[in-house]
């Protein structure tokens, strides 16, 4: 072991290297590491947040779906009720209308019947009179036949 100026040279070199490392190497690397750490932390937090939001959205969606289903059920039941009402109304109206038509028809029929009766009665009287005339012509027993004619007329 013989010492010489290499000792001093080494010390100076060492100091310069350490200075350089301290000035130009260490800080930027540490800064980058620090920033990356922050970024990773941020990313993880964002992921967590996203997961949370997804959960919320899913809940919200379920709620909305539920509400929509309820509303739909309500609408359907209302529609059914309304439909039933309409059918009922229509039925009533139809019954009423039918009644009206029936009454009118009955009236018309009665009138027709009466008219036919009148006509018939007239014709019967004519026939009876004609018949009576013919009988009178043949038998001349008006009194005997009168009762017969009355009977005939009453039967009609």
């Amino acid at each position, binding site marked *: 072991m013989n010492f*010489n100026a290499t000792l001093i040279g080494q010390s100076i070199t060492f100091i310069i290297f350490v200075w350089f490392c301290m000035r130009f190497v260490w800080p930027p690397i540490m800064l980058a590491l620090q920033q990356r750490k922050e970024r990773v932390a941020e990313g993880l937090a964002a992921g967590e947040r996203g997961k949370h939001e997804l959960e919320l959205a899913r809940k919200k969606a379920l709620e909305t779906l539920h509400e929509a289903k309820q509303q739909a059920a309500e609408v359907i039941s209302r529609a059914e009720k309304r439909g039933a009402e309409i059918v009922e109304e229509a039925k009533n109206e139809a019954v009423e209308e039918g009644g009206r038509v029936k009454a009118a028809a009955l009236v018309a029929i009665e009138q027709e019947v009466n008219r036919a009766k009148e006509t018939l009665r007239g014709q019967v009287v004519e026939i009876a009179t004609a018949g009576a005339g013919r009988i009178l012509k043949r038998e001349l027993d008006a009194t005997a036949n009168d009762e017969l004619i009355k009977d005939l007329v009453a039967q009609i």
Partner: protein
Amino acid sequence: MSAAPETSAEYIEHHLTNLTYGQHADGHWGFAHSAGEAADMGFWAINVDSMLFSIGLGVLFLWSFRKAARTATTDVPGAWQNFVEWVVEFIDESVRGSFSGKNPLVAPLALTIFIWIFMINAMDLIAVDWLPWLAGLMGVGHLKVVSSADPNVTFGMSLTVFALVLNYSVKIKGLGGFFGELAFQPFPKWMAPINLLLEGVTLISKPLSLSLRLFGNMYAGEMIFILIALMYGGSIAMGALGGLLQLGWAIFHILIITLQAFIFMTLTIVYLDMASQEHH
């Protein structure tokens, strides 16, 4: 190799001699041709190989890390940036674990020490003869590739760390506080001289243990590589055994070079932490 060494002793000595530039005994400046000549040059000589390799590796370290630092983004990192960030985080964690105070110097210091020493040590894994042989082709007589097997290098670092320790001790505890820490414990005040002696030894042992541990490990490791390399000169069986041994030792050495770099770094952090802590 300048003059092909013949004996084993010469081979070993040749491999353990630095390429030293200094003033020869006769007054002219030049490279030393032997360990003896290098020693004769006294203090004002310089181990060119140690300086070149350590500075080269240090510059490589800073350049490559600076590249990663400049392009560092918060996006998905590339392979190199990923590696650098991994190393930096590892160092940062070590510093956080051992250093309780707040000092922007400690972490970069630890990073520099760890990577630089690791790279210097890793030169040990290159087969011992390759680079000296290449240097020999270029006419350079001696070349010691592993700078950390040169005590000048390890002491250069550990003394700088020691200076930092002294600096922070005085700065944070004050001159009196620092002196008090040395003189008034572990025994009562009236035994101050004994305390001073004990604590003085503790204090001095910090840079010594730092540098001698690293130097000793790397020097011994290098020595074993050289001894194994010697076996290639024997029979084929010896050479084959040597190859096997070299492989085994190199694999084991990967652990040692990392461990030594880590220990140097951790102890530096711990010493600086002790210097920064106030005792009451």
